[in-house]
């Protein structure tokens, strides 16, 4: 079983990202489970959401404490929350930032940074980075295929909006693939 923890702020679509990643993974032929860290947080407050992937039915219901992957939707979260807590050695951290982060990242962790906000603004006209980061996650983790991600996005958003989100995800996917 592999586990993903998404760190975001209320309103950034972390829960939707978790759901869409699970949908894409399931459509790709594995069992998946997505759930939020159920809270009463309002817009702007730190939030978390989780995804599990496995080849067999997932029974575990606890939150994710030792993730294989983390997505950080907003690099300012690093100051507020220990986003790296429990991240496995060899794990992958995908961080949305426009800067070079001078941060003592844990050892043995692969850190991928990208300016998802700019990509999102370019395609959506809004700084909502969840689908962009999903593209990056697909490229970095291999847990989901870009095609499955597109299908999941189309199931959630209609017409034009789906297209814009897919364009953002695709750009991030290619950026991460290219960097690798």
């Amino acid at each position, binding site marked *: 079983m592999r586990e993903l923890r998404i760190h975001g702020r209320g309103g950034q679509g972390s829960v939707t990202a978790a759901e869409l990643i699970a949908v894409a993974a*399931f459509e790709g032929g594995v069992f998946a*489970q997505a*759930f939020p860290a159920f809270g009463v947080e309002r817009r702007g407050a730190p939030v978390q959401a989780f995804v599990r992937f496995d080849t067999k039915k997932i*029974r575990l219901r*606890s939150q994710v404490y030792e993730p294989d992957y983390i997505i950080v939707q907003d690099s300012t979260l690093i100051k507020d929350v220990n986003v790296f807590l429990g991240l496995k050695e060899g794990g992958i951290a995908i961080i949305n930032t426009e800067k070079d982060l001078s941060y003592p990242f844990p050892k043995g962790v692969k850190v991928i940074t990208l300016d998802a906000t700019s990509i999102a603004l370019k395609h959506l006209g809004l700084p909502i980075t969840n689908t962009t980061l999903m593209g990056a996650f697909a490229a970095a983790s291999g847990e989901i295929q870009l095609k499955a991600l597109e299908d999941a996005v189309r199931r959630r958003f209609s017409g034009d909006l789906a297209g814009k989100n897919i364009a953002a995800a695709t750009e991030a996917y290619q950026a991460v693939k290219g960097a690798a």
Partner: protein
Amino acid sequence: MLEIMEGSHAVAEAVGRCRPQVIAAYPITPQTHIVEALADMAANCEIDADYITVESEFSALSACLGASAAGSRVYSATTSQGLALMFEVCFNCAGMRLPVVMSIVNRAMGAPLSIWNDQQDSISLRDSGWLQLYAEDNQEATDLHYLAYKVAEDHRILLPSFVCFDGFILSHTYEPVDTLTQEQADSYLPPFRPYQRLDAADPVSFGLFASPDYYMEFRYAIDQALDKARSVIPEAGKEFNEMFGRDYSGLVEEYRLDDADVAIVAMGSICGTVKDAIDEMRDAGKRVGLLKIRCFRPFPHKEVRKALSGVTTVAVLDKNVSLGSRGAAALEVRDALYGSGVSVQGYIIGLGGRDVRKRDIASVVAKAEAGEGDIYYGLRQEVLR
């Protein structure tokens, strides 16, 4: 066909396929996604139900009571404070023998205010005469609704039923679920056939008052019906299994219990985590198993005693506490095992949404083996000083 979807939506779909004719519900976290989905289905004529947007949970269940008495299949959903507000009506539905089915999206009771999961809400209604079924995952949460209607409306039973599943942990989780098609649902669940109804062509008076000369007999009749449910539920579960290949024929379910020394007893979504923890403990050479209680009311004393006859130690996990006493399931299990010599230890765990991990389960087992039980597990140290 397996589809991945949110638990609440899976339940709403299943409820829709049960063809309720009247739905009355009041929004409360974390039940909202279910009633929103049903409202959406009603607004799009996907279900043929009259959806009453009541002004309180109290009225929600009262309206269900009236509609059920008038001869309709009814549905409601609630949780926690909402269920507490229905308290009086709950006793009424059972006493009037009306087969209302209601989802309980389990949540803690205030104060302090908590929107998070435990099972104090439905457990607190354990004496009200409703059937109580608890689901481990979203597949079971959906399937148990078909089963609940089937059993509740059976003329040998005629009692209301809760289908309980853990708030957020199941209701807000996306996972694969196989929902029945309408055709499958119809083949399993026949249309509602009321035993008696409000009807000008054949007037009946419902809800008379009973003097001391009669009252006890009516309460006894409810208990007799609950006892009958001990065989009708497995019957309905067996039929479901024969038709759809998912087995709910047991009031309890065993997991790796055959040669176990230690048995964990639990209800609801925690059972999944317990199973994973058991696999790890088994790998480490510990003989541990799980007895999952699917049906808490009627309580399956006989089945519990039989299933636990070979173990030396039982650790009962309760996401509830009968304050001033113990966890509800621990009390029942101890009653079931009275005189058997098996050691029964109770653990109050996961109240108010406190997360329960595999390592917590292992720790509970160690405590049970050491005879350290009847405790709140995992309290903050400062309250113990």
